[in-house]
């Protein structure tokens, strides 16, 4: 499809707060991305505001604190989405359209059981029990529609800010779960040092204590992807903490959005 035909849906609800910069990333690439409240998709809003999920090719759940992250991060969003939009979301994914979750969006997709999809997993309170904000490095391990244009093994510098980013599996079955995830090649990003060595759980390289330094994963099909770091916060070189010492042509985050667009153009 042509670039002008692409429609990206950025879904939000009360407490989502990264939708503006996420939308801006698409706008810079001249692609139509619309910020849509969950209730505009579920039919719980009036005529003019109503939207249909099937009109879009990409669904992005941005970062923030949906519903205050009360109960658990992403729980309310996930539960509402599952109960009111399950069929539409399932069809969306089955058609090979793409779903991405950034930070809180990753928490939503995991809480909804869409990620990893084949294994039970949860994102829980950081090992420090505190909100962790700052910059991190991740190593790219698997190509997905969101990372098409990133070479395998490439190290990217992203920002992060979250209180619940530690990926866990059901206690007792965790070794098996991790093995499966690796065998199915579902780990997209792992936290690493600036030089590209895996963090090995070491703070601040692994900021939240997540299992096996996992920062992002995908489903078996690779078209549903979630990750904790925020690419949309590093769109320009000057967004990086180290831009005075490191010359970049563009912010490390843009490659994610470029990948999405290229993928959709090829696929549909």
């Amino acid at each position, binding site marked *: 499809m042509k670039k002008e035909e692409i429609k990206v849906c950025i879904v939000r609800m*009360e*407490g989502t*707060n*990264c939708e503006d910069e996420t939308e801006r990333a698409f706008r810079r690439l001249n692609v139509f991305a619309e910020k849509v409240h969950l209730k505009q998709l579920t039919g719980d809003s009036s005529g003019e505001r109503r939207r249909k999920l099937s009109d879009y090719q990409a669904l992005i759940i941005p970062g923030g604190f949906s519903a205050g992250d009360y109960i658990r991060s992403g729980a309310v969003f996930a539960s509402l989405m599952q109960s009111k939009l399950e069929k539409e979301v399932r069809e969306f994914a089955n058609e090979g359209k793409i779903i991405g979750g950034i930070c809180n969006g990753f928490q939503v997709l995991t809480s909804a059981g869409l990620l990893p999809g084949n294994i039970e997993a949860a994102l829980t309170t950081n090992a420090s029990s505190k*909100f962790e904000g*700052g910059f991190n490095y991740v190593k790219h391990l698997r190509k997905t529609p969101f990372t098409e244009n990133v070479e395998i093994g490439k190290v990217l510098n992203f920002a992060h800010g979250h209180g619940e980013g530690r990926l866990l599996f059901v206690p007792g079955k965790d070794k098996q779960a991790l093995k499966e995830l690796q065998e199915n090649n579902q780990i997209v990003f792992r936290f690493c040092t600036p030089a590209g060595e895996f963090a090995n759980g070491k703070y601040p390289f692994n900021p939240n204590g997540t299992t096996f330094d996992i920062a992002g994963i995908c489903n078996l099909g690779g078209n549903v992807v979630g990750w904790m770091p*925020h690419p949309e916060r590093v769109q320009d070189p*000057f*967004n990086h903490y*180290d831009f005075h010492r490191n010359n970049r042509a563009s912010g490390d985050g843009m490659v994610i959005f470029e990948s999405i667009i290229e993928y959709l153009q090829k696929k549909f």
Partner: protein
Amino acid sequence: MLKTSSRDSLSHLYRRLDTSFPFYEIDVRSATDSELIQISKERHLSLSLDEMKRIKEYFSRGKRNPTDVELESLAQSWSEHCSYKTSKPVMRETFLKVKAPQALVAVSEDAAVVKFDNEHSYVVKIESHNHPSALDPYGGASTGIGGILRDIMCMGAQPIAVVDPLFFGPLDLKEEKVPDGVKHPLYLLRGVVKGISSYGNSVGIPNAGGMVYFDDSYVGNCLVNAGCVGIMKNKNLVHSRAGNAGDVFVLVGGSTGRDGIHGVTFASVELTAESDSESRPAVQLGDPITKEPLIHACLEANEKGLLTGLKDLGGGGLSCVVGEMAHAANLGAEVDLEKVHLREHDMAPWEIWVSESQERMMLTCKPENVYKVLEIFEFWGLPASIIGKAVRGNRLSIKYKGYKIYDMELPFIIEAKEYKRPFAKIPESAKVELNVPQPKSLENVLLKTLGSFNIASKEWIIRQYDSNVRGNTALFPLQGKFETLGHGDAAIIRPVEDSFKGLAITTDVNPRFCKLDPYWGAASSVEESFRNIVSVGATPHTMVDCLNFANPEKEENMGYIWKCCEGMHFAAREFNVPFVSGNVSLYNESHAGPILPTPTIMTMGIIDDVRKSVSADVKGADNFLYLVGE
């Protein structure tokens, strides 16, 4: 709220009216002076005898007695916090003399509006939330952030950064040394940081800096200041006043409950050992998940040109906002208090009128636009109630369940008397001869210095704040190599997309200097903030200030206020950088003593191209180091 014991002693002055709800008339006309004082004390009105007598006079002229709603409302409007009765004359004669031609709105509304580029302005304000934070650090600090965000929003601006200058007792204070009724500095600081981070991060406004300062004088009375900057298109400027007669008042956002009652009168008295239990209602918790959509909804309604006025509900709640919005427009108002959406249903009318529940805004619009406005709030899942309208004249009248419970002239309510308080002369300069012997091991001195609370890294705090959300952070507060990040001098935000122009933000004050020499201490606080701004490659543009001082009724404290303000004036005038807004917090002392004079300065700088900024870290071996200045 009356305690039974006190009601007995004054019972002859309270007349319960024959209504289905609690409603009293207070017989000030026949009250003696000592009874007037007692009324003020027992109802926590914090009104002086002079003020009580003014009330007595006003109602004697009208040949009736005030209702509890009216009396409570006057206490709110005349509180130091809402009226600046002590500090206004001082500020006017000192630093406010430096005019601000770059500002569209300065020192008159909720926040200052300053030209940024041809189409945009930045909006800035700083406030204190000291007393509530001392009682409940988490709730106090988070509602402090909530309040400052509302001040920015209500001009029509999108908040883009917050800052949080904090002042606490030493973290290693021995438990035995913590005075009664006071919490340990470590408990307070942790709670405050958690409150600020959980609120600011949830709403999604980056934290651009602040400061943490430790001194024994803050043990009994910590200081929590919060500043915020926003950005808006000039054409979206909306004022904190009603539009025209006939315009409708719509109360939007959170519901009204009993929390925060008497917050402002409480902010105007010293903390005592009993404050903890006595002042219970003054504490509120914030709700960032109402605030986040509230920002969207208010800005959307304003963007669509539907609003004629917008103001936040802060200190004094409804009692301050309705009167001020009408009075600023030279109008009166009629209110139907029953229409206010409540959280607790058995509230007395006076409680509804002065409650300081969080996350509420008041807007006015033309009657024909009301439904468009209500639709927007409904979409964002926020309650909105039409509670009254602006009318010609200068009276504010309120009815509740069919009864008229309030009817006064706005000029009387709002124009609080100013005080020229006596002040003591502070010795010109308390120059101390320092005689420090050369230490044997400089290494030990260095380690000790680096380990002191005021010098040590604040990274553990900074990392709990989100500094990158909104994707416009152009100079991160932590700078250097990844493994050894340290604090920079100021952060930079790039507020307008498609432009490289940036806003540098910093806060500063050196309270110990201000104690030793208030004039030069305050002047040097301004100058230090300028050095911070210049260090990142920006030019100082405007300042806002938060004057945190002890009880102004003591002459020495008043002397410090004067001297600090004069020092600020000197620096502002010589650099020609104006103060455009600010806030005053007095009575910062406890039975453990007064705080150090703390005039917090928040400075905004402009940098034409954020890509040309400078970070603090040395970039490589063999770089030259230069020491410049005197």
